[in-house]
């Protein structure tokens, strides 16, 4: 939704457009564009022969979409719901806008229904809400990293999703989680290695103290992250009473690469291992995800 080219980069393909590109067998990718979405909408629903003449006015329309509450959002979310309704795909994964914006996006049909009293758009908000609020068809996956602000924002987002929209949070994915290095006994040994620094230096060279520093740094980072994940878990547990358990799926930090198709395939493998394969691919489903 927030086209900065990150998705194209992830699949290592050229610029993505509103027209879907098949990036792998059975996998298509597109970039949302409000203006194209509007054109398609007019072609499909308004059916008046004006499309050619709208060209010079597209910019004006963009301004309206900018200024009128919910219009831009509904053009985006409407396109997604339309694809779900038409059953054009088995699964639609939405790389949603940053956490502050996703609530207004998913909530757009409701805002429109409240603000617009008559007109085609209003008439069409109900079927969108039916799709968005059906936990069998739409789930929101919140992605986060084990750091202070992302975890705090995710907790807030989960609360707002429940309060302000009817959408169903189905999972939290904690990305870039550092692995546990030591058992408790080993941890105690690690914490005392400084006492044996001389021996280590004589055995493995002068660089040993930097090597120990590196391990200590990584360990401190992991510990801080683990505390934030505990906080996340605690607040998910308190939400669980009202809406069933929201699982946390963790994806470990990948040191070798930070972006591109290689990372995508490694992360996909890890997710496949963590996810219950039977829960994948119901007949139709749209999934929104936050974009950490």
């Amino acid at each position, binding site marked *: 939704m927030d086209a*900065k080219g*990150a998705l194209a980069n992830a699949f290592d393909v050229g610029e993505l457009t509103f027209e879907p590109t098949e990036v792998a067998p059975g996998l298509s990718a597109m970039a949302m564009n409000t203006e194209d979405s509007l054109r398609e909408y*007019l072609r499909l629903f*308004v059916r*008046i022969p*004006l499309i050619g*003449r*709208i060209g010079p*006015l597209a*910019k*004006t329309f963009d*301004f*309206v979409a*900018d*200024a*009128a*509450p*919910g*219009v831009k959002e509904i053009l985006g979310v409407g396109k997604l719901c339309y694809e779900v309704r038409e059953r054009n795909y088995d699964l639609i994964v939405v790389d949603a*806008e*940053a956490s502050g914006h996703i609530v207004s996006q998913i909530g757009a049909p409701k*805002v429109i229904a409240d*603000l*617009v*009293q*008559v*007109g*085609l*758009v*209003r008439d069409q908000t109900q079927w969108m809400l039916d799709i968005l609020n059906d936990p069998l068809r739409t789930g929101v996956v919140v992605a986060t990293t084990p*750091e202070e*602000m*992302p975890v705090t924002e995710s907790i807030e987002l989960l609360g707002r999703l429940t309060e302000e929209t009817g959408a169903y949070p189905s999972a939290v994915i904690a990305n870039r989680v550092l692995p546990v*290095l030591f058992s408790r*006994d*080993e941890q105690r*040994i*690690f914490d005392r*290695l400084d006492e*044996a620094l001389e*021996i*280590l230096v004589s*055995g*493995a*060279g*002068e*660089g*040993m103290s*930097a*090597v120990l*520093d*590196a*391990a200590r*740094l*990584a360990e*401190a980072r992991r*510990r*801080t992250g683990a505390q934030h994940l505990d906080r996340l878990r605690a607040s998910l547990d308190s939400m669980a009473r009202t809406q069933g358990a929201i699982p946390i799926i963790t994806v470990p930090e990948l*040191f070798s690469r*930070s972006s591109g198709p290689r990372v995508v395939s490694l992360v996909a493998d890890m997710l496949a291992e963590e996810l219950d394969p039977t829960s994948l691919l119901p007949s139709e489903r749209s999934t929104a995800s936050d974009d950490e």
Partner: protein
Amino acid sequence: MSEFDNLLASREMILVAGSGGVGKTTIAAAIGIAAAERQKSRVLVLTVDPARRLASALGLEEVGNAPVQIDPAAFSEAGVKVRGEVWVAMLDTKAGWDELIRRHAPDAAVRDSVLANPLYENITSRFVHSHEYLAMEQLHDLHATGDFDLVIVDTPPSRNALSILDAPSRMVEFFGSRLLRWLTVPYRSRLFTVASKPFYQVADRVLGSRFLQDIADFFVLFQAMESGFVRRAREVEALLVDPRTSFVVVTTLETAPSREARFLSQQLLERDMSLGAIVANRVLPEELAGAEAAKSAAALLEVAAGDLSESVAKKLGKVSSQQVERVLIQVAEQFDDVALVAARESDRRSELASLAPITLSIPWVSGDIHDVAGLGVLAGHLRNPA
């Protein structure tokens, strides 16, 4: 004086920019402390949405647009020696907009109609980069009071780093836009404007004429404030290129934030805006990328299984050499991962260094920073880089 001290001494406004999640607010607060450490002055940090614990450390529990002073006792308790005063204010977008409307409304009737309009809140919260513009407005106001020697703005997180730079001109553009003119042409004559006829028909069909009319009513009111808004936006825009203003771009050395920082820095240079410094936050120590450490890590992997683990176990006492061996192997393997990241960071740092007169690295510290003492440590890194 260090280079960074010089920058703070020669400027009256510092805009702290960068992508979200890089510690921008924390760095902005640390810059404020650094400035107050350097000389006896009044420094203000204007922030947008601080992490809660940081906010409470700064005494920002309930403040709005009005600045509050950080209790000097908080500094002395934390062992931070400031010579000046540090003030903080938290941007309240809604209050800021209300204030703008009050200032620019030609009369009480327009003012009250706008403030009571149901579209007003919805529109101001998502419209023409509202947050960015309001941050700049506040900066303008606070600087104009003459109450502060230095105002530091922690710019709002945005989808696009440029939106802070473009916010004032977008505001001017909006008031001169076809949309506003079109929306505010009386309903009847709109039907007769040939150019807008097809557009109007479509818009009417899709959005409903009632909604369009609501929007139009609102913008008619809004247009009454045009001249005031435009003049202000121009003044605010001028601040961006003012010689007393400088940008500090904050980033981590990860891929995406670095790319954003590089882009932002290049844009600043292109627009003749002053880029004072790039601050690389949460950086791994550079020596981790060094050859000596790598050699030791490789050696450790080879000798861990032998006598070394045994002597370490003996030295520590009450532990088995097998356990020590496992720990040492983990340490050695762990090193490769960290060193790889450190090497990548070092590359990115040199790329960024070519763009700004000052590039500073703030080392990664364990835990998050949410007290005055932690901010004092950061201020030290800014003023006396390693």
